[in-house]
């Protein structure tokens, strides 16, 4: 049976980025610029995506603005009727760059902040002067009449300033704000001890978001992502494997989620060799964990198996060593102790490593 087509394409244009966030979900082995897909490859991918039934494309990275051809790609997306969303740190978003993107037809921009407090933000991002550039970028976006989403990734080291972050988002005129507790993949997983919040911090952040939602109503919608380590049930990762999303890595690997390359014994097809339709409909990589037939116990017989699809495969691998097991976040998982151990080893003075290429690019 042919699976329902994907709704969104995550186009990870590059792993290059001027920032060094310790929670970055990019893989530890960052792709080099020379391995990146060409402009023509990306254009073909966008056309194939639209034909397959994709409605939205999210240009991300790394920093997608590090690609010189971003404007061309946005224009191409618009020409094939894809809704385009740019996910950027804003440090390269000058007024002139924005004008070009607007002219090319960008539909929406998500601008990320490391913190509301300058010093902490720039320590986390590892770039002096970044905060002012972001504030300017927000102003340019609003002045151009584009809707602005501000994004704050929160964790042990900045979560206590959530109120200030919300105030900043309001002041910048965000129509939407994303408050996302760190997810533990890539660099985030490496630095987990320094990033995992305490239960009190989590509970307080949830209360702060709830109060702000009541106060703000529709004037600023807040999307809130909780850290699943504290949950009783796992998240439905990517809304289920191969159900809604296709992720393309900078080098052109088609992945069911951005962390999937960590999974052993799975070969991910390249968009250089196969069409998106072939990959989506019949590649082994997309078939392997699609639906429920791959599931072992306890998921196999669980009443929630079509709600969370067994949780996250990459998290199962990272924490149990086996991608086929239930996500250890689940209370019904026999591996829940791995989560308990992680919560126990997080601490205030844990060291963390800034994201950076391990081999010179």
């Amino acid at each position, binding site marked *: 049976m042919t699976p329902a087509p994907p709704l969104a394409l995550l186009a990870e244009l590059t792993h290059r980025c001027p920032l060094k966030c310790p929670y970055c979900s990019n893989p530890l082995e960052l792709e080099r610029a020379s391995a990146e897909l060409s402009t023509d490859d990306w254009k073909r991918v966008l056309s194939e995506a639209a034909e397959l039934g994709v409605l939205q494309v999210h240009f991300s990275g790394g920093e997608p603005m590090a690609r010189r051809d971003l404007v061309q790609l946005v224009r191409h997306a618009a020409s094939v009727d894809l809704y385009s969303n740019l996910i950027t740190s804003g440090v390269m978003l000058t007024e002139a760059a924005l004008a070009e993107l607007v002219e090319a037809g960008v539909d929406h921009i*998500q601008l990320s902040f490391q913190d509301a407090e300058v010093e902490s933000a720039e320590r986390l991002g590892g770039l002096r002067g970044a905060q002012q550039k972001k504030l300017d970028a927000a102003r340019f976006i609003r002045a151009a009449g584009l*809707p602005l989403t501000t994004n704050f990734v929160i964790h042990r080291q900045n979560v206590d300033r959530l109120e200030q972050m919300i105030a900043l988002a309001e002041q910048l005129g965000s*129509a939407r704000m994303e408050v996302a507790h760190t997810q533990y993949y890539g660099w985030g997983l490496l630095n987990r001890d320094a990033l995992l919040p305490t239960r009190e911090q989590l509970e307080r952040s949830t209360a702060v978001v709830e109060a702000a939602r009541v106060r703000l109503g529709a004037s600023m919608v807040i999307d809130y992502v909780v850290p699943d380590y504290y949950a009783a049930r796992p998240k439905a990762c990517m809304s289920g494997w191969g159900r809604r999303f296709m992720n393309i890595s900078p080098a052109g690997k088609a992945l069911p989620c951005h962390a999937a390359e960590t999974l052993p014994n799975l070969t991910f097809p390249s968009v250089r060799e196969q069409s998106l339709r072939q990959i989506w409909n019949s590649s082994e990589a997309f078939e392997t964990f699609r639906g429920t037939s791959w599931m072992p116990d306890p998921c196999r017989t669980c009443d929630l198996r079509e709600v969370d699809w067994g949780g996250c495969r990459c998290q199962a691998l990272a924490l149990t060593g086996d991608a086929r097991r239930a996500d250890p976040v689940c209370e019904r998982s026999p591996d829940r102790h791995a989560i308990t151990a992680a919560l126990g080893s997080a601490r205030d003075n844990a060291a963390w490593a800034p994201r950076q290429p391990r081999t010179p690019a």
Partner: protein
Amino acid sequence: MITAQSQPALSRGVKLRFDQAREAWVLLAPERMFALDQPSTEILKLVDGERTVEAISDDLAARFNAPRDVILADVVTFLEDLRQKGAVRS
């Protein structure tokens, strides 16, 4: 709040378009989308920032030969829900 007198419009960055692959209309918004059934589609096609909710309801009541009060209530509920999600402004 959406009322009978509101002149609703789609928020910036929100687009109504036909989805060829699924043969249905869809509302595309910043980082999400709403699949639309036929009645919702008919309402949104009339949302242009000028027509009032009343005028939209009159139009639909006439075309679909349905009681205007019921239609008006449905239109208000539907648009108010989208307003709270940030997709429509009053």
